[in-house]
């Protein structure tokens, strides 16, 4: 069952598209579910399909095609690290090593307390700010150094937003 908030958000998105093109809101609908629950389960896809009025299979296709959807729990704060060329040249391998050591997890894993998850991402379109990661697909933190990472992790652990840019 989609929450009232999710339904209200989907309704707002639907207004952007012609009345007979409700499927256009599916990407946003999946994002709303992920933002609320942290990840998207098959039952959520079924709910979205029913709400929008499209085949469940078509929702599944979209959810599996786009990288930023999480189809399993990835921690309260999912850090997605871009490892593409500009970031690689700017030392992202050290960034990643620092994160792995600090959190004690590898890529695709979550910390034991469920607080942090680590993912590898593709080009985020912010290459001049390399190296970088996003927090829950919302906040982009760039020009990362060991010190800056420690500060962001500390803020997040304390329940803050992480990163002030």
């Amino acid at each position, binding site marked *: 069952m989609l929450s009232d908030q999710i339904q209200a958000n989907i309704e707002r998105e639907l207004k952007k598209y012609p009345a007979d093109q409700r499927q256009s809101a599916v990407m946003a609908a999946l994002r709303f579910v992920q933002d609320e629950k942290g990840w998207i389960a098959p039952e959520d896809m079924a709910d979205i399909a029913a709400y929008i009025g499209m085949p469940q299979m078509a929702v599944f296709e*979209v959810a599996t095609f786009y990288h930023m959807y999480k189809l399993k729990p990835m921690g309260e704060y999912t850090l997605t690290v871009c490892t593409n060329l500009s970031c690689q040249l700017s030392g992202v391998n050290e960034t990643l090593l620092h994160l792995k050591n600090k959190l004690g997890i590898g890529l695709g894993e979550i910390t034991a307390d469920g607080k942090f998850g680590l993912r590898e991402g593709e080009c985020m379109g912010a290459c001049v700010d390399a190296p970088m990661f996003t927090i829950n697909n919302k906040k982009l933190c760039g020009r990362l150094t060991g010190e800056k990472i420690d500060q962001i992790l500390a803020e997040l652990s304390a329940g803050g937003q992480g990163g002030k840019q």
Partner: protein
Amino acid sequence: MSTPIIFNTLHFDQPWTLENYLKVGGYKALRKVLAEKMLPEAIIAEVKASGLRGRGGAGFPTGLKWSFMPRNYQGDKYLVCNSDEGEPGTCKDRDILRYNPHMLIEGMAIAAYTMSVKTGYNYIHGEIFEAYERMEAACEEARKAGYLGQNILGSDFEFDLHNHLGYGAYVCGEETALLESIEGKKGQPRFKPPFPATFGLYGKPTTINNTETFASIPYIINNGGQQFADLGVPNSGGIKLFSVSGHVNNPGNFEVPMGTPFKTLLEMAGGVRGGNKLKAVIPGGSSMPVLPGEIMMDLNMDFDSIQKAGSYLGTGAIIVMDETTCMVKALERLSYFYFEESCGQCTPCREGTGWLYRIVHRIEHGEGRPEDLDLLLDLCNNIAGRTICALGDAAAWPVQGFLKHYRKEFEYHIEHKRCLV
């Protein structure tokens, strides 16, 4: 430096507000178009005279593209902005969205007027959520002030613009994949023809331009196409945003005239980091063939100069690599990217990108075979030009470029099972 054209609000504390945009002459061009009831033909003529070529990578003449839209079509037509900026190295459109969203809105409104379109979509790269929020707020601001919606500025012109957030798929930067994505589907490119001007979004006539392309329009209307053209060089009109990333001291986006020497841009970016020697440069986004540093130092940044040297200007994203860069490792990462991002629709790309990645990977990891380099080139020839969209070419060109200029480094890796640098 002359006064910036696209980055003309950057000196404000809040460059993105309507108030500040108006202070630098914002929406004057739209006002002019509506007050003078400019003829669409006249607008298209100015855009053609400006020499503006698509800023999303392909460099197609914008005025010509606009002329393809069926003028007398009865029914819905769409205008789409491609802000799905995910070509490694490229991040200029993000700064337009973040810092000058109203210039994009104004440019799109003029385009919509020219092609009699009532609805537009701006497709934004998923990872830059903050830019999406900024655009949503700017559209709302424009609606309230009468620059979007019905009866714009008291005229009978109607146009509304909506933002659509992508969610992590490089291939959606391809225009027909992007349309599929707006329709709520997997972003798999369509066969062309039919082209979007006849069969686009929801099957309706559609024109798709890049963010920076639209943002160039207000200046062209205010000052005339010729003046924009004169800022640049023949066949590369106007100014351009260049993203300079990688091994430089001061990575950033720089607005300069087309034809600016690469050397100048490198200086603007603070030079090669740590005073190191320049080794190689990718001049137009990761898909474009790499060029050796010494060749780049003599080149100007415009379509023809870069093409003559064997690469392309693409999106204007410059990735700088210094002497410490292992070219095998660099190519390995790029090949992984195309393998990861292939939509899987065409066999040569789906299978071929995997082959390319696995072979470069084994060379990098000391397991390369002497025949691998010829095998890579043979694979490239069987991918490029044999797929529905250009992602196949985009996967092949870097491999061909790296092998053309740095083959010795690859051979060394294969023979000695370690790096030359």
